[in-house]
């Protein structure tokens, strides 16, 4: 579904990603972990098409298409979804209007009939029930005055409504209380299917108890320095990142020899 090859990227002249290779197949769940500032959000944003970052080298193939040649809205319409680490507020625009427009833009792109207001409403009811969201949140302005946890839930609501092929969830677990974490994870698990894929960015192994990853990758200083199964997350939880940091591993080797 998604193939990233030797991806390099800079922001304001500073190199953030220094050669990323990643392959995600349909039906898989991948987790990316790594210290603050290592480039996790950068990676997710670049896949989604955020033009604040400059790709200097490499390619991203999504469903056989060269993503880097597509504008962000077309990537979204093709099925790339990013649940933002920091969801943005849009004052005066109701969640419902926003979502209805989004769904219908995507439908239009695929030459499908737009949802009628009634169809939209029942879909919205169904999905917000899964996430235990109050109806009031739906008529409120997008993310305005939402608590941290409500914003994250709202991102997942959007994911369920738009039903993408690839969902990139950037620290969706941070800011969620214990119950909310279960509810949101349940939402993601309901979404998971043979023909879609999920990439979660997280700092906490707890989330991975609920959303079981097939692969865990460690992103460090712009590179994936280790990949493994879900047990890698447990190991990280236990030992932190030091034991795999390349410079530390290297110096250790030097010392021994």
């Amino acid at each position, binding site marked *: 579904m998604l193939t990233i090859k030797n991806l390099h990227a800079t922001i304001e002249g500073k190199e953030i990603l220094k050669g990323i290779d990643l392959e995600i197949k349909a039906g898989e769940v991948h987790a990316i972990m790594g210290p603050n500032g290592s480039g996790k959000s950068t990676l997710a944003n670049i896949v989604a098409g955020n033009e604040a970052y400059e790709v200097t080298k490499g390619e991203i193939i999504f469903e056989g298409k060269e993503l880097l040649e597509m504008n962000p809205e077309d990537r979204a319409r093709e099925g790339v979804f990013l649940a*933002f680490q920091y969801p943005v507020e*849009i004052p005066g*625009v109701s969640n419902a209007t926003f979502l209805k427009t*989004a769904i219908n833009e995507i439908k239009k792109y695929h030459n499908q009939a737009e949802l009628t207001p009634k169809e939209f409403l029942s879909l919205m009811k169904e999905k917000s029930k899964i996430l235990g969201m109050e109806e009031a949140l739906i008529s409120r302005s997008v993310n305005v005055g939402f608590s941290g946890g409500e914003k994250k839930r709202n991102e997942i609501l959007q994911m369920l409504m738009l039903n993408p092929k690839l969902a990139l969830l950037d620290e969706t677990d941070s800011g969620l209380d214990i119950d909310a974490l279960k509810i949101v994870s349940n939402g993601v698990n309901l979404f998971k299917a043979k023909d879609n894929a999920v990439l979660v960015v997280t700092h906490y192994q707890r989330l991975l108890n609920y959303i079981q990853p097939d692969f865990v990758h460690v992103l460090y200083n712009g590179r994936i320095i280790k990949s493994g199964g879900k047990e890698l997350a447990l190991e990280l939880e236990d030992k932190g990142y030091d034991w795999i940091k390349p410079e530390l591993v290297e110096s250790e080797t030097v010392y021994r020899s």
Partner: protein
Amino acid sequence: MNEIKEKDKNPEDLSEDMKVLDDLTTSEYKWGFITDIETETVPKGLSEDVIRLISAKKHEPEWMTEWRLKSFRYWKKMEEPHWPNVQYPPIDYQDLSYYSAPRKKPLLNSLEEVDPELLKTFEKLGIPLTEQKILAGVAVDVVFDSVSVTTTFKETLKEKGIIFCSISEAIQGHPELVKKYLGSVVPYTDNYFAALNSAVFSDGSFVFIPKGVRCPMELSTYFRINASETGQFERTLIVAEEGAYVSYLEGCTAPIRDNNQLHAAVVEIVALDDAEIKYSTVQNWYPGNKEGKGGIYNFVTKRGACRGRNSKISWTQVETGSAITWKYPSCILQGDNSIGEFYSVAVTNNYQQADTGTKMIHLGKNTRSTIISKGISAGRSNNSYRGLVKIGKNADGARNFTQCDSMLMSDKCGAHTFPYIEVENESAKVEHEATTSKVGADQIFYLNQRGLATEDAINMIVNGFCKEVFNELPMEFAVEAQKLLAISLEGSVG
């Protein structure tokens, strides 16, 4: 797409989005066609003779001619004001024509007798003059250059005792009402442009809602400047007697002309005890081209008097047009418990300049006012809010709430806020809030990421920003206003 790549002089920080937008700047004013119609135009220049001529052409009674002359003499002694935050070359008042009318005398009773060219013009503008549109239930008065060409629905309204006609007709048919109220809210001594308007006003609408009557439909006037080098000076007068209610809408467009055209209207409205008047404007005069050439100078005096107890006047305006806008729809809250409201969206793009706002003058007890102003600046434009809240010494318990929000769409535009507050009564409460924001790349990206193209994303953000004001507009006009906004801002970020 190719075109913009060449035009981009500083592409270093223009993202792809911004380029798409920049491309769209080429969208032109869509109401800019010129109607080829035979007109009768008074030669350029302003003098007592010209004023007598205008008055004679309109078969006005002596008192009206005298009032015009008095206004003219007063105007001659005045100086054009230059305090607004706008810039323009000096206006040569002798180089304008003060009257232009379609030559075929329009008959006001039937649409069939209106010049077909005119009907076609209004069809192009999407103005409901056809029978089918009339069924939609909006009574329309149309002012083409200097004269009112048709007023629909007159009969239906007449049954309720409502008078809705051109001001010229009112001067003929209801002189006692005109005499009583004309100049009673905006005297000719009020300001330079009001004096000029009083001297030369050509036409406009007159609305009278008698005691206890709720006007059953929206009343609407559509103003169109067609002739070149002609000033347009409409005069509108609306009176709601005790317990009456009316919602009135005004729309305006003009053809594309290279030279600037002057529009100096006066609107006076009067609400007696328990009366309510809603006045909505969608102003879309030609704003000039992308380089700032041409466009309308819109220098307008609009004022409402809440004379009666519990009366209410609301101004809602969506200002997207004009090269320069200079207007402050105001409320004089005389009656105890009276309410004044001002809801405004002012959009400036390219080289447009707007200095607009309101005055709320609290004189009566427990008077309340609300001001919500949304300024959107794009391109190299300049957008100023200027507002006065004055609480008189007898206005016990008066309250005002003001909120001024500005949104910037580029780095080269300006937004300014000039709030003036004068409080002479201790018990009054005046609140003022102001914000300035920029349409953020992060907001646009968020919406892009959900499948919205950049232009749609910007429209969504801007509409959200203006929502409190759009909510005040009658439904169909709110839709119109949103479309207009989208067109005015096409290609505006960058």
